[in-house]
């Protein structure tokens, strides 16, 4: 999905798969614009960030818990904050909250490196042709009304997500299940489900969707083609068991605190629109004995400054990732022992419009990519300990160690620009010094304007002139990624991408020919060679073999002989504030690289006064 980091709105929209493309302009953007960037921030070394208080926290952490296990957590005030129907939510904090109410099949480990079974007993069993996934559910799982959770509930949950009436955005990720596209399309199945790997269409009934309960606790998913990352998709909130009887009985009202029946560690106790959501421990949850929190109050606070103030006043214990720390406050907060951060699985790019004649030579693009001073960007501008990047796909995705070798650190991101090398490449390409590049970026707020200025001065050093085009975020969306291919006049667009699922395919798809027309490929880059290797990767189910293919793809993009359709800039960092007495699995609170947060692991230590 498109990450909005470069207009600072990453703070609120980060990791909202699909929806980040929607480019909403929340009030805070406008507000922050009014406040202007008066921030004068200091420099911090990457390693130092977020580590300040760790030793203290460990000594104070320990196993002693407070008597009163009630926590108050800040969340954003998105419109879906009042929605409790799992497939209908889209933003990350809502996904996190629903993970507390409903069990999903698999969850990520903290560093995002591996999937762990949750409502399932083990990782899915995958048939040799990669077309059948078998999931075994826990037998001790129960609903909050005491009824056992069965395979039929999961089947219904998947059907509910695919129901056209649900209008679920995330159904987009489920359409490779047999019959899913047909059911989700209704009468338009013939037009929508045309991919050549769909041999024949089903009748479009929910029962014809390839999800079946083979016994009380086993569900079989049948796919129309091998999808190597299908197991990753099963961590989404669309693969969640739901109660048919409850939804059919109450209709739209099934999610009110009186009607809702949940399967997760918590049940919904109270919902006050735009104000608070209260959840309470669900005694029927299989692991209820290990759930320490009796009650969580989520307070909807959209304004970062207020959220931070509420935290400092001790009225919230934990803030939602990125929403609590305004760039003006980062300096003050960074050294505190309650500041936590972790690299996000996300990238920021300068996309080059490869169809423009002046940028059509890969050597020119390579020179531009090399000419950017990334260390300066992360040290002097973003200041959250972000990581300069050599590759298109970021660190933290499985296989990074393998496929990142494809880039061979050609850009030299950590060292800063190699001016002579860049000049040499431009000379080889016969760069005309009279050319001026039009760079587009979000003007609303945040770091993009400063990053663009930095690039302007960096490129001046290698003899490339730049015209800066600050563009309001909503207009930028119409020239940049997400809506239409980059327009003819646009040369460079600053934009980002954040994971939908943890497979590098999510990044490499950005540069396929198909996605030029679809609007995801902001570089208008189309290479038969690249597409051929990409298609090969799609067919390769074995992860290790796939990573090797990704290495070729990476080399094709950012390697010494690569085409460099976009210059990777840096990998952003997630951060938040968490009181030192907030424990997670018995240890001091840490963010996950995916931004996902599992509330049942939290507790309050005896340190809380």
């Amino acid at each position, binding site marked *: 999905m498109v990450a909005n980091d470069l207009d600072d709105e990453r703070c609120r929209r980060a990791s909202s798969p699909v929806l980040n493309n929607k480019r909403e302009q929340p*009030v805070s953007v406008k507000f922050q614009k009014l406040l202007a960037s008066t921030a004068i921030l200091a420099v911090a070394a990457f390693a130092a960030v977020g580590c300040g208080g760790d030793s203290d926290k460990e000594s104070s952490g320990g196993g002693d818990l407070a008597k009163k296990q009630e926590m108050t957590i800040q969340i954003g005030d998105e419109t879906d904050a009042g*929605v409790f129907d799992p497939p209908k939510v889209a933003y990350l904090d809502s996904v996190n909250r629903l993970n507390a109410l409903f069990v999903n099949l698999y969850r990520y480990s903290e560093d995002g490196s591996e999937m762990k079974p949750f409502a399932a007993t083990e990782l899915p069993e995958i048939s040799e042709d990669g077309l059948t996934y078998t999931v075994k559910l826990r037998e001790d799982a129960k609903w909050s009304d005491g009824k056992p959770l069965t395979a039929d509930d999961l089947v219904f949950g998947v059907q509910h997500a695919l129901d056209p009436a649900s209008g679920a955005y995330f*159904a987009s990720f489920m359409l490779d299940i047999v019959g899913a*596209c047909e059911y989700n399309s209704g009468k338009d199945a013939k037009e929508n489900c045309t991919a050549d790997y769909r041999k024949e269409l089903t009748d479009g009934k929910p029962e014809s969707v390839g999800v079946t309960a083979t016994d009380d606790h086993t569900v079989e998913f049948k796919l129309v083609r091998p999808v190597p990352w299908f197991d990753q998709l099963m961590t989404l909130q669309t693969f969640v068991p739901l109660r048919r009887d409850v939804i059919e009985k109450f209709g739209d009202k099934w999610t009110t605190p009186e009607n809702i029946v949940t399967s997760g560690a918590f049940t919904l106790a109270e919902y006050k629109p735009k104000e608070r959501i209260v959840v309470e421990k669900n005694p029927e949850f299989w692991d209820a004995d290990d759930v320490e929190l009796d009650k969580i109050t989520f307070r909807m606070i959209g304004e970062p400054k207020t959220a931070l103030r509420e935290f400092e006043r001790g009225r919230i214990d934990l803030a939602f990732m990125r929403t609590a720390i305004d760039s003006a406050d980062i300096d003050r907060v960074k050294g505190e022992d309650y500041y936590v951060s972790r690299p996000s699985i996300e990238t920021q790019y300068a996309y080059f419009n490869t169809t423009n004649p002046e940028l059509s030579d890969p050597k020119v693009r390579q020179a531009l990519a090399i000419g950017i001073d990334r260390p300066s960007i992360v040290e002097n501008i973003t200041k959250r300990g972000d990581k300069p990047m050599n590759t298109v796909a970021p660190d933290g995705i499985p296989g990074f160690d393998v496929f990142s070798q494809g880039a061979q650190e050609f850009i030299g991101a950590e060292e800063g620009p190699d001016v002579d090398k860049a000049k040499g490449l431009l000379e080889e390409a016969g760069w005309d010094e009279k050319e001026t590049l039009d760079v587009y970026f979000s003007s609303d707020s945040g770091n993009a304007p400063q990053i663009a200025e930095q690039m302007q001065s960096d490129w001046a050093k290698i003899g490339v002139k730049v015209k800066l085009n600050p563009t309001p975020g909503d207009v930028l969306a119409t020239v940049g990624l997400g809506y239409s291919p980059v327009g003819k006049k646009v040369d460079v667009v600053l934009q980002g991408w954040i994971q939908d699922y943890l497979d590098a395919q999510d990044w490499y798809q950005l540069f396929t020919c198909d996605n030029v027309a679809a609007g995801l490929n902001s570089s208008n880059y189309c290479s038969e060679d690249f597409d051929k290797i990409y298609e090969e990767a799609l067919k390769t189910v074995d992860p290790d073999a796939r990573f090797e293919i990704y290495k070729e793809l990476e080399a094709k993009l950012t390697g010494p002989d690569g085409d460099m359709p976009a210059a990777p800039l840096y990998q952003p960092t997630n951060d938040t504030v968490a009181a030192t007495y907030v424990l997670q699995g018995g240890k001091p609170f840490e963010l996950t690289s995916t931004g996902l947060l599992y509330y049942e692991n939290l507790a309050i230590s005896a340190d809380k006064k």
Partner: protein
Amino acid sequence: MVTYILRRLFWSIPVLLLATLLAFVLVKAMPYEPFNDPKLAPSVRQNLRELYGLDKSGAAQYADFLTDFVQGDFGLSTKPGNRPVREIITDTLPATMVLGGLSFFFSAMIGITLGVISALRHNGIIDYAITFFATAAFALPSFVVATLWVSGKVYLPPPIGVIQFEFPYGWDSWWDRVGPIAVLGLAIMPYFTRLVRASMLEALEQEYVTTARAKGLPWRRTVFRHALRNSMIPTVTNAGPLFAFVLTGSFIIERIMIVPGVADQFIESFGQPIDSRMVLATTVLLSALIIVLNLVVDLIVAWLDPRVAND
């Protein structure tokens, strides 16, 4: 009088229709279609478009809107979660009305009093003090005041420096509510003070005041019974639109001071992707509010100045 009110209300219907039609046409003229996210599968996009009736022609969509509207329904918000617009508004309108109403009331009370005092002490030290205060309050944008208020810091000259206070803000208790009401009230108050001061000064120069004094009417009675009543007319005329401004203008305060109100939903609905049904609902609500307020204003003015009613 009753027929007058009924006639006015009747004529507000075409005004409302025109307002929604304008809003509808302007929303449609935006070069942006919701749900054209390239990551959405065609079927998902189509389902969403059908859910919102976007697959129909413009005229049919407007007709849909009117049919829903007559039934007291505003359709679904196009923001994630597909929540009904009516639910969003009924959930959050009360807080905004309470915030707007109370700050309007208190700022009117205090503002008018200060304006009268200022006029009576014309060019005196109190007048200067009040005018200075009103101008300062007028010049300070509410987002600055709200931010400072929430931060709880009071900046004083050295050697005192910064003092930290715990000002109330939020919406949980009435004590918390004092914060947003005070900050919003401070933003409106100068309007009253300045209007009342100006019109009061003018009224005090009028011949009827001289006549009343000449006839031996006590000063107090002359001021409160005659001058004040007449000087209230421009204030009341301006108060109607001002109240509508208060409701929509409080979004920054709602956001910073955590008021669960509707104002910032209003503003957000205009952001991209534009939330067409929310924008239409907002237009109807605000238009209706202004129509009603103008009616109320006219009635009050007629009461203050019987000549208006006779016209």
